[in-house]
């Protein structure tokens, strides 16, 4: 995507535009993710078609569009919850064709879910430790027999989990049951769990849904902090335009499974097609 342009006066047709809060900095635009002609059909219905997108190594990209536009489907294609009918996905130049969800995660894509999917009955700490599954490893029998490697790696897992929880200042909640957390905390925990898998691309599906404005503001700062600390690419689906316009360097607009616009926040805000998709056609029928 094109480089970040300094924020201009928002076009008045687009809902809730806002100021960019990203400080001036160089971002690594060498592609980590390349989607080429990606598409999927459900039965006879084409849910996503000819989806092309490139995301840079430390870029924050937004995926927006009206409800039912196919945004979550794109995430499901990237993480191979659905196998694409057409097209290729290159992650760090490597084709992910034939991989399943597990392999894609190991290759470096982690995600959160629109309808939160935590391990409700387990503690917050265990949720993060499960995210660390492939990062801190020891064999099964070491656990059963309580060999020294078990104690060493468990200690490491505990420390890493606490360190990750610190991003959102959630260490105090470590012993709580994940399902009992308030909504916002559950969303944050999902992000921490995804980060624990050490991804190079983090997919956030409506991270600010259900959050109040001050929580959203915190989240925006935290997303930037995550990108800067971990030096990873983040792609997010969000309906809160202040968040999208505020932190995304590049935005892709989807409608009826088709990309209708790509560009910087400013370009998107000025794009008549986007305005039409959100507000309906200006022309009256008949």
């Amino acid at each position, binding site marked *: 995507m094109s480089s970040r342009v300094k924020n201009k006066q928002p076009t008045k047709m687009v809902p809730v535009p806002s100021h960019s809060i990203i400080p001036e900095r160089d971002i690594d635009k060498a592609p980590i993710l390349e989607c080429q002609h990606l598409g999927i059909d*459900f039965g006879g219905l084409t849910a996503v078609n000819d989806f092309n997108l490139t995301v840079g190594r430390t870029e924050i990209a937004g995926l927006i569009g009206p409800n039912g536009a196919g945004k*979550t489907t794109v995430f*499901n294609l990237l993480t191979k*919850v*659905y196998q694409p009918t057409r097209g290729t996905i290159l992650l760090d130049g490597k084709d992910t064709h034939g991989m399943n969800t597990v392999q894609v995660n190991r290759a470096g894509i982690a995600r959160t*879910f629109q309808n939160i999917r935590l391990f409700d009955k387990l503690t917050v700490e265990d949720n993060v430790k499960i995210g660390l599954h492939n990062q801190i490893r020891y064999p099964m029998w070491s656990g059963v027999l309580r060999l020294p490697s078990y104690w060493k790696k468990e200690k490491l897992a505990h420390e890493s989990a606490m360190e990750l929880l610190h991003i959102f200042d959630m260490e105090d909640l470590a012993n709580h049951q994940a399902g009992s957390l308030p909504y916002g905390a559950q969303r944050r925990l999902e992000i921490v769990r995804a980060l624990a898998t050490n991804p190079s691309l983090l997919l956030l599906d409506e991270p600010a849904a259900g959050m109040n404005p001050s929580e959203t503001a915190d989240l925006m700062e935290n997303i930037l902090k995550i990108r800067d600390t971990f030096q990873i690419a983040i792609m997010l689906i969000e309906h809160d335009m202040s968040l999208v316009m505020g932190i995304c360097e590049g935005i892709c607009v989807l409608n009826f499974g088709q990309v209708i616009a790509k560009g910087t926040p400013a370009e998107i805000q000025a794009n008549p097609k986007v305005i039409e998709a959100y507000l309906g056609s200006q022309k009256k029928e008949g």
Partner: protein
Amino acid sequence: MSLLNNLINGISLGSVYAIIALGYTMVYGIAKMLNFAHGDVIMVGAYICFFATGQFGLPPVVGVILAMVVCTVLGVVIERLAYKPLRQAPSLAVLITAIGVSYFLQNSALLLWKSDPKSFTSVVGKGSFKLFDGQLTITHVALVTVVACIVIMLALTWFTGNTKMGKAMRACSEDKGAALLMGIDVNRTISMTFAIGSALAAIAGALYCSTYPTLMPTTGSLPGIKAFTAAVFGGIGSIPGAMLGGILLGVIEIFAKAFNTQISDAVVFAVLIIVLLVKPAGLLGKTVREKV
């Protein structure tokens, strides 16, 4: 000729499986639960029919109708007491409850009617048609069973396609929430499904025991499980699927029996496993995608 005889026996047995499988498939399609106790409703039906015709000397048709009435009530009561409170519960809990109900019926029967096998008198009579100089035998039971199965399947297909209740059933099987919003009484529809399934179980019980006359409290469980296999085989939720699966399974079982009696059940279950692995949705079923 023995091949043809086996085929006829297989289709007859398969028709019984098909009738039972219809009950499974309708309940599974609409309530999304595996009614493990369905096989034991068959057993209850057979006992009622046995006592009505044997003990009280009622004509067979009355016996079967009485069994249908009792089973219908039983099915609805089971649904109300055991399954309805668990509408929102995880499927594991519902399945364990259904197993509990199955055991409850079996052991109640054991206490009421004792474990000694009863010899069931055929509701159709013992006659048979002999063709090709007696080389090929078609019993009246076999004929009635096959005809009953076809009639029931056609009637159910018409019912689900053309009546208001039938359409409500299809709506509930697609999306209970949406059906509720459209003013469909979901609880009543599910009760109705259990009623129909249980009435069919009574018919199946009478026909099964007419062919295999040993009646015990455990009589229903094996045909029940096999009929579920048949329903899965044909594609659960599909009425023609249940019929197709039932008949195929019956034929496979009879041929396996001709080969080796001891392992015929193993063959039937092996078929189930292979079907589920190769085509999890069954022959005529459709795959459902989990929403993420």
